[in-house]
């Protein structure tokens, strides 16, 4: 229950729209409404660049000031890659999209390394989505430190987005991150290397698995990266036809854009492909 300070009721201030008190009040009302409405009016949203997906999201895009989770999904064989380049690629795409809102803002990347066979993100590839010079890389040893560092980052005014790479599922930490993001308007992303039990704190949850690419006809080369992307949670968003909207997305490394692969070109007869939207 938010507490409204008595000074907010001062009549002279309330009448004057330009005073900070009135703006403050309006902001409080907006927050109260936002918590219950599907609109989250006034909050900025960043288009994902894929019209089919944007149509389902509130305000046609990913809300800033919210927690978004990306988890690496299982491959068609059911195996989950211990290190997944695809989920990281999708997360980098989201970071890049959020980064456009504050072109000079810092991107905070917190991660906890996993032993000797650790595979940190490689900036030469991330340059396709955003300028790696904007990254502030933070390495932690404990999950508490990771969530603490992310929260500190969310409170920092110059931050464009905060990403945390972890395997921990901490409901309290997730809620704290969500609140901190909502308060500051800085988007928070959680990147998980494996599917996690669903938690209700995040605004959107994505499951991304790498999918077979399309070779140049006659050659056997690796085509543009394709990701099977599921939107498993879509708070405040429009209801979709299917329970879990799924798309096969293709990242064009030359045009730097993400697009949905039309169903006819899947070259696959898997059952999950039949549930495509778009």
């Amino acid at each position: 229950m938010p507490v409204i300070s008595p000074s907010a009721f001062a009549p002279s201030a309330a009448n004057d729209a330009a005073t900070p008190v009135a703006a403050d009040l309006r902001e409080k009302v907006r927050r109260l409404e936002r918590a219950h409405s599907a609109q989250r009016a006034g909050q900025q949203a960043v288009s994902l660049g894929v019209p089919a997906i944007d149509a389902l999201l509130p305000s046609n895009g990913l809300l800033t000031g919210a927690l978004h989770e990306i988890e690496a999904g299982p491959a068609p064989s059911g195996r989950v890659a211990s290190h997944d380049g695809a989920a990281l690629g999708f997360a980098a795409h989201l970071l890049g999209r959020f980064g456009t809102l504050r072109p000079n803002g810092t991107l905070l990347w917190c991660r906890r390394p996993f032993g000797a066979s650790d595979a940190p993100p490689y900036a030469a590839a991330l340059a396709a989505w955003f300028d790696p010079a904007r990254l502030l890389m933070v390495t932690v040893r404990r999950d508490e430190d990771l969530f603490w560092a992310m929260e500190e980052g969310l409170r920092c005014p110059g931050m464009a987005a905060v990403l945390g790479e972890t395997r921990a599922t901490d409901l309290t930490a997730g809620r704290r991150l969500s609140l901190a993001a909502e308060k500051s308007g800085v988007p928070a992303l959680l990147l998980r290397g494996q599917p996690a039990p669903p938690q209700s704190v995040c605004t959107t949850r994505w499951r991304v698995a790498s999918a077979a690419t399309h070779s140049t006809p006659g050659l056997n080369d690796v085509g543009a990266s394709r990701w099977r992307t599921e939107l498993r949670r879509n708070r405040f968003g429009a209801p979709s036809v299917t329970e879990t909207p799924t798309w096969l997305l293709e990242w064009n490394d030359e045009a730097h854009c993400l697009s949905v692969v039309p169903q006819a070109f899947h070259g696959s007869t898997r059952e999950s492909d039949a549930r495509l939207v778009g």
Partner: protein
Amino acid sequence: MRLADSRALVPDLVTTPGEPQADHRLIETLANWCDRYTPWVAIDPLGGALAEEGTEACSTGGFGGDAGLLLDITGCTHLFGEGEAGERALLADLTERLARHDLTCRAAMADTAGAAWALARFAERQADLYCPPRGHREALARLPVEGLRLDAPIVETLLKLGLRRIGDLYPLPRAPLARRFGDQPLTRLDQALGTIVEPIEPRRTPPAFRTRLAFVEPIGRPEDIAAATSRLLAALCRQFEQAGVGARKLEIALYRVDGSVDRTSIGTSRPNRDNPRLMKLFEEKLGELDPGFGVELMILAAPEVETWSGTQDALPDSGAIAASLGEDGTIDLADRLALRLGAENVVRLLPRDSHLPERVQTAGAAALPAATGAWQRVAGMKGARPTRLLQRPEPVDVMAHVPDDPPSVFHWRQHAHRIVRAEGPERVADEWWRPRPDGSRPPANIVPPYRDYYRVEDDDGGRFWLFRDGAYRMAANGRQTARWFLHGFCA
């Protein structure tokens, strides 16, 4: 006198073995403690030398009592009072506090280190220990020549000649004296009289900026320490402002009632004199400090400062993000994170012009990001790169139909990955112009080691970055073999 002789004279003589190391440690601790009066504290080189030789010191009659400390208190006495009164008060305070720790000492104050040394050892009356400014010439005249810090043979000869007091040397012509005894007596005399400078070499480089706060009653509660830190910081920040500098490192020292000192320091990645920001950094660290039985004095010093105009400087290159950084709080965030997680864990990624993929990405200071576009330039020169790069390439078992063909199956961590699509090879040769890890240079006339990189996709849709280490070689069993490694994971 030897120990055996002493025992013969006094049969129930109590003896303890000398512990020069322990003595030295005690002197070190005392020197630390003396930082409370001045940052210029030195261990007397003569006393120290004797203490290190140990038994020698005892046999020459020193009994370890030769150890001494030299304090340069120039500009420090005003904290105890004005003018001569302040100097006397400092001297009295020093003696009294040491007495409280059961340490017997004789402290003298004079214009020169040599005069103070002589007075502390040879002054006959207690009142002579304090020598008023410019009074050291008369004070020294009454003292024996031993007070000049001369070698024992010289002192012996001087005594034989009837030159017992330092004052006896004043009227003597200098040239014959130098011919007879060498440089030492004249140098020492000039040092004691202040005609030549004798600098004190401090143990720690004294910081240019420091503030101190002494308490009437020892404090111990964390809130009190925080409040005191805040006051010290405010005073120090005013000093910074006048000098036009910002702190890169700050050190706070707690002088506890039991004579020990506890220190902690904070670092900032950018010169800073913003009181609330620095205080926020200190708040993280103050918990580590142990006030013990109470703190009677706190000193805040800035060992590292940098010139800083206070406003954001113009950018060296227009595109650098550093511009907005200082203003938007990222630097403060980085400092806060670095304080808790360690500075090596809060980094920027910097590109490096290198062929080897693992050398392209390096870590740099949080305050200095790469220039805008530097990464784009580096990335643009390379082929497709993985989004994750293994810190150490992991060996994999590979089956390839024909050597030089991309592999058809590879085994990694007990899983077989059947390769459906492959791209490559991209040949990356070793950088022959760089010395090897052992420092030797690779010979110029051989082909440098190289790797052939392949981007492959398995039947699950996973994309990997593999490389073959060099060419195929003929193994002992007559089969062609090569070593393959997994180096990264592609998007």
